[in-house]
């Protein structure tokens, strides 16, 4: 059975790009359009890893990450931030909140797949 990755991004086209890259590598993908939507997807079902954008409406990625870390079922689920943000201060914020990796967009599919392979539980 393939492992499931939750992809959180407010851009539908970007989610499709990530989904294609991950499906090509054999992963199953669940999509969410922002942090709030993503929280509804964490309903007890198995999620092996989360790939999350930072700047999103309703609930941004860092707020979502902090929420995930308070959920007993998902607090050990690795989270990769995939974002256009490349400022060190933002990265430090992500690291402090519990992110395992920070990838800047536009990403190389092989780099994303490498990171997912490495961190996926």
């Amino acid at each position, binding site marked *: 059975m393939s492992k499931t990755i939750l992809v959180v991004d407010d851009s539908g086209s970007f989610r499709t790009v990530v989904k294609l*890259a991950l499906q090509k590598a054999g992963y199953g993908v669940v999509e969410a359009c922002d942090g709030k939507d993503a929280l509804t997807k964490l309903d007890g079902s198995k999620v092996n890893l989360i790939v999350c954008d930072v700047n999103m409406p309703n609930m941004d990625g860092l707020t979502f990450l902090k929420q995930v870390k308070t959920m007993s079922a998902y607090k050990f689920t690795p989270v990769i931030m995939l974002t256009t943000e490349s400022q060190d201060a933002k990265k430090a914020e992500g690291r402090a909140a519990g992110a395992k990796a920070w990838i800047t967009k536009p990403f190389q599919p092989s780099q994303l797949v490498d990171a997912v392979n490495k961190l996926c539980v």
Partner: protein
Amino acid sequence: MSKVTARSALRNVRSRLPALGMGVALAAWLAWQGVWAALLMLLPLLWLALARPDPQGSGASRLLPAVLPLWSNQLETLQTQMRTGLDGVLESFGRMVGLCEALDAELGRTGGGDQGALRSLSQQISTQCDTALHGLQFGDRVHQMLDVVKNDQRRLEASIDTLSAMDDHAVQAWLDALRASYTTDEQHQTHRGEAADTGQTSVDYF
């Protein structure tokens, strides 16, 4: 008189009130002192102050409210068209990836023909797919950058009435807010007047 013209005229009068007030006060004082000759010399100056076109009330305050929404609409249309094109390419691309996987599966199943050559072709297609997936992300990036420009245009449009009162500090605060909305290195580089890097991927593990 249109609403914009009336507003502009009102702004003209309002902006000259302090100068007019001083002029009238000086004229009254001179008249009180009986310096009628000086008062006569002052009158043409008062007339010049009234007749001089106010730079804030002239073209800029009429043109900007008309032009900025047009640019916003043009950008909106550009984004919609780009998004439509990108969605189409992505849908087609998704099918191509599926076809490549099906080709691989078929090669594994049949095992016939020149398998080495076919596998090499399949690998080349896969590499091209990865390159395309990287390239397709730029549409989303452009969309995001245009969003920032559109928001700044709306902000400028909303502050037209207060532009004439902006001092250096207020201008700097406006530019700082503009810079704070950037999310990509390219936006910061462009803001600084540098050549924009096309965006290199970086991966940091924590």
